[in-house]
């Protein structure tokens, strides 16, 4: 029997866990509305039926769509099978509140706004946080570290949305920055110069609240990793052969950044789910705010769609980060290649 490359075994195992997790998550999503007493889905369908007096045509089609999608009158196993098939085809159904638009269309409408806010904020905090972490580690126990450490811990302990609330209060008190939305109510999204300036003006506060609170986490983990690296023999060697502290710092930065790259992939996957509340606080028109209004309107189709997409993104980011780790770090790669 030929020996299979352990690296491939590793990837297959991680892939298995990812598929299993997605399966568990979607099973929970399938079962919940159906097993909870008073079946919330059936209640929603019933409500729509009752409202049909006011707008018979539209309501009839929504009801038909819901019946077609959920097939509540069919046996449970058949419903489950259909549910999985729809998911695998990327068919998340149609929204109840925005009928007849599909869930996919609505997600595509809000997602770019969320990404425009999150990706720059997280990458910027990753770079600055790593830098600050290395500085704290190089000066461990000295004054710089003693100031940085509690500051980073406090930033990490404050949820981004609480920070956001304070920033909004500050903005309202000082009138320096607009306190909500992604652009002025009168502005129309376009690529014009005036719109971009308006957008950036609204962008600063939500950006700051995500940037600063995630800075704490990056700084602390970088500091821990760098302290461990500093205690390694090769760092002593670098010192002994007279490499300048500046150069050592840059080596240290590159050595310690490896696990942080993995962290970055995970956090980017997480971020959309993690910033739901921050978006709500700033009334920023992204996925988070959209999820909030879907929950308020009890639009189960949209709620389910957002969850599938958020969980899917996170699982994928986790999987990618593990592969990156194995590919980027030769030590990990050799460990799996089994020498």
């Amino acid at each position: 029997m030929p020996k299979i490359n352990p690296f491939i075994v590793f990837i297959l195992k991680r892939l298995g866990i990812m598929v299993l997790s997605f399966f568990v998550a979607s099973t929970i999503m399938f079962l919940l509305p159906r097993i909870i007493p008073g079946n919330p889905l059936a209640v929603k369908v019933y409500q729509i039926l009752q409202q049909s007096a006011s707008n018979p045509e539209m309501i009839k089609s929504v009801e038909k769509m819901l019946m077609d999608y959920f097939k509540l009158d069919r046996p449970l196993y058949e419903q489950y099978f259909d549910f999985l098939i729809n998911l695998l085809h990327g068919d998340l159904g149609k929204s109840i509140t925005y009928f007849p638009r599909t869930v996919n269309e609505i997600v595509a409408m809000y997602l770019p706004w969320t990404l425009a806010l999150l990706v720059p904020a997280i990458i910027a905090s990753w770079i600055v946080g790593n830098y600050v972490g290395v500085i704290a580690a190089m000066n461990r126990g000295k004054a710089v570290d003693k100031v940085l450490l509690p500051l980073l811990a406090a930033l990490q302990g404050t949820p981004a949305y609480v920070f956001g609330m304070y920033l909004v209060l500050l903005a309202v008190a000082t009138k320096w920055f607009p306190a909500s939305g992604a652009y002025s109510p009168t502005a129309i999204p376009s690529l014009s110069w005036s719109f971009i300036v308006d957008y950036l003006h609204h962008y600063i506060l939500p950006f700051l609240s995500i940037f600063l609170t995630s800075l704490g986490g990056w700084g602390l983990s970088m500091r821990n990793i760098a302290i461990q690296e500093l205690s390694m023999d090769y760092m002593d060697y670098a010192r002994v052969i007279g490499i300048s502290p500046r150069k050592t710092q840059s080596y240290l930065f590159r050595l310690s950044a490896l696990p942080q790259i993995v962290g970055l992939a995970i956090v980017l996957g997480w971020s959309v789910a993690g910033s739901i509340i921050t978006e709500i606080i700033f009334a920023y028109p992204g996925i988070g705010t959209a999820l909030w209004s879907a929950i308020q309107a009890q639009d189960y189709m949209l709620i389910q769609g957002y969850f599938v997409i958020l969980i899917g993104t996170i699982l994928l980011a986790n999987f990618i980060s593990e592969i990156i780790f194995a590919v980027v770090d030769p030590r990990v790669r050799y460990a799996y290649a089994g020498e």
Partner: protein
Amino acid sequence: MSILTDLFRIPKFVAGLAIFLTIVALGLVGPLIYRVSPTDIVGPRYTPPSPSHPLGIDALGRDVLAQLLYGIRGSLLVGAVAAGIALGLSLFLGTIAAVFGGLVDKVIMVISEVFIIIPSLLLMMVLAAYLSPGARNIWLVGFVIGITSWGGWARGFRSRTMSILQSEFIKMAILSGASRVSIILRDIVPIISPYILASFAMLFTSAITAEVGLTIVGVGMTKDITLGLILYIAQLYANITQGIWWTVVPPTLVMILIYLSLYLVAISLDEYFSPKLGTA
């Protein structure tokens, strides 16, 4: 009790414990001393703080200080229920996995991995979104948070148990015919008890934060007053953008103080009992 006197010499531990106990006292005794009902309408809405209403009046004409005191009580209860459930699950599954090994270990590890990968906040949201709003009280919300946040700690308990299982006295216990359950209860739990305490503290504070998050999103608490519900009402009536700080700053400050105090307690416990692991 030399361990206790030692612990009380660590400034971080004392500071954390003092802040936390003050907050607990506010939640337990506060409503008995400040006898204003948190649900009664006491004056015109958005009255700023004044001697008669030290933290002002909220969007629905209710006294904010009374809301805050009952809210602290509610949030502490949610934290205790959720942390109790999560700690029970993670301790049970983590130690069982380590001691029994084999297939039991594999199954528990895969389940916990799934629970770690699927973010607990999302799981909680899915669970809570489908629960009837009329039923979401302290117990239900605490339960939902508890059963979704045990994954990481189960792994922690497993690895700590594994390292103890290597010791000579465990081999002695096995040779003398002790059952695996008795090894867990008599040998392992006492040794990892500081870690259990630290994990309870962290589960407790993350449960309080999770409740606030769930409730602001609109799938959390509806029936009992918690810090989350105060903030939800404040957000629903756009208090923040109107600059009405007195319904927003007090509950968030309490939240941050609970986190910081328990974080101090947890890290000083961990540093005291496993000094080598400490990096601070």
